[in-house]
């Protein structure tokens, strides 16, 4: 029993990280109608930004996170301006291929600047807290706390601000959003900025949980896509639920099969959903189309 609870805790931690990655991906997927393959590497880049603020400038870890989120937002808006916006009328396949290019550029840039080795935000071993037979790392509490705060902020933003409502409207029905008079290009900029900031937070938390290395975000891209598709493309709330389900399922699977197969679990879920419920489990999102 304790073992199951322990695995559920790991599932929550992984799920929180996937949720933060999935919100931005689903919004850009729904609004701009393309699958952004550079999202995982933006996550990595954000984690290294935070590393730079922490050790390059010696800032406290929490401030480094905030600064990295802002830097990631700026980087994403610039990439959109330079790469995606000029290609936007060319269709989603062109954008997808462009994003693969952006992904490779970011990853190699990281390798070039920080090298291929692992990096850590904290030196030394953290002693786990023991609670009801569970081993809880203090970092895990940080991860859950930060993710919870960000999800609540996203919720408030999407529900109660004009820009947030416009974002949901555009993910629902782009043409009607234009007909309504929403200045769509401005909202697109906001979408990139917020999606990237959340994705940077995901990368930071992943680095806090394990370590930083150039492929860290790329390796998580598949489960993030699985979460987006599970929740319905363009649905931020679906992405939250989908992320928790994928994280939880991946960790729970380790009770039955080797941990090496964790990514396979996400892949299988994604394929099954695509086959039987392409609009996502809640049938609220758009179906996958390329």
């Amino acid at each position: 029993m304790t073992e199951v609870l322990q695995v559920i805790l790991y599932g929550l931690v992984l799920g929180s990280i996937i949720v933060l990655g999935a919100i931005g991906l689903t919004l850009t997927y729904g609004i701009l109608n393309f699958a952004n393959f550079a999202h995982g590497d933006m996550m990595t880049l954000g984690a290294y930004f935070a590393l730079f603020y922490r050790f390059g400038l010696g800032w406290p870890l929490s401030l480094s996170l905030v600064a990295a989120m802002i830097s990631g937002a700026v980087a994403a808006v610039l990439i959109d301006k330079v790469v995606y916006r000029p290609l936007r009328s060319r269709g989603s396949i062109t954008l997808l291929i462009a994003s693969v290019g952006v992904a490779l550029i970011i990853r190699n840039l990281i390798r070039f600047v920080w090298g291929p080795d692992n990096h850590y935000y904290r030196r030394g071993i953290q002693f786990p807290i023991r609670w009801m037979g569970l081993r809880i790392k203090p970092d895990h509490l940080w991860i859950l706390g930060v993710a919870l705060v960000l999800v609540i902020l996203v919720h408030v933003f999407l529900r109660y601000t004009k820009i947030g409502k416009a974002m949901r409207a555009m993910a629902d029905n782009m043409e009607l959003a234009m007909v309504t008079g929403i200045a769509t290009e401005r909202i697109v900029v906001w979408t990139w900025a917020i999606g990237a900031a959340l994705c940077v937070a995901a990368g930071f938390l992943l680095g806090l949980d394990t370590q930083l290395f150039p492929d860290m975000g790329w390796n998580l891209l598949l489960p993030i896509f699985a979460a987006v598709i599970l929740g319905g493309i363009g649905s931020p709330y679906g992405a939250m639920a989908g992320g928790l389900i994928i994280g939880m399922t991946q960790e729970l699977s380790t009770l039955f099969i080797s941990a090496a197969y964790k990514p396979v679990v996400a892949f299988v879920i994604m394929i099954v959903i695509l086959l039987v419920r392409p609009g996502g489990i809640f049938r609220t999102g758009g179906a996958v189309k390329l």
Partner: protein
Amino acid sequence: MSTLLVRDLVAGYGGLDILHGVSIDVGPDEIVTIIGPNGAGKSTLLKSIFGLVPPRAGSVTFMGKDVTGERPNRLVHQGMCFVPQNRNVFPRLTVEENLQLGAYILNADLRERIARVYDLFPPLKEKRRQPAGTLSGGQQQMVAIGRALMLDPKLLLLDEPTAGLSPAFARLILEKVVEINAAGVPILMIEQNAKAALAMSHRAYILTMGRNRMEGPAAELLENPEVGRLFLGG
């Protein structure tokens, strides 16, 4: 002065022209209806007036200003609002959020405007916290029209507001259109329900194959035997 003046409009998709020079007027207090067979280009005409399909020739003048090919966003600022035929609500947003987005360009308290829409369409009030996609077709059409009314438009474009509705709901929606017009909003409407539409309109145009075929006071067209035979089903 006409509210809307369309002259010799040419527009289409890809390399293909669908409209081959269409001209339409809408006066300040009028309901003007466009009828015509499927594929005649009626929707294309509204979309090119509203800047969703760029005109290739001809002109659109709105309240005395040339707005040919102007983006939808700019037209909304000038008071032209459009209810498309399909997918005309935000399904995952609540009814009230749909209405709020209708006045997206305003920075004002919207409560009074929203209350006016609920007065016009009372069933929406109890459903205001429900996602618009969960409403019946008729109620979704109310949301769509209500959304377009949020800005107190100076011209309302409606593309087949009764498409797919039950006869009772279709009648109700057309009655509301008359009510909206009586409150001072000029309306340019496409209707496949030609008889009912002509009966409530001031003037009408018949469009076939991307060209003006006939026009005149709606009552006259309704009496015209040729119109009856060709477009009103006998």
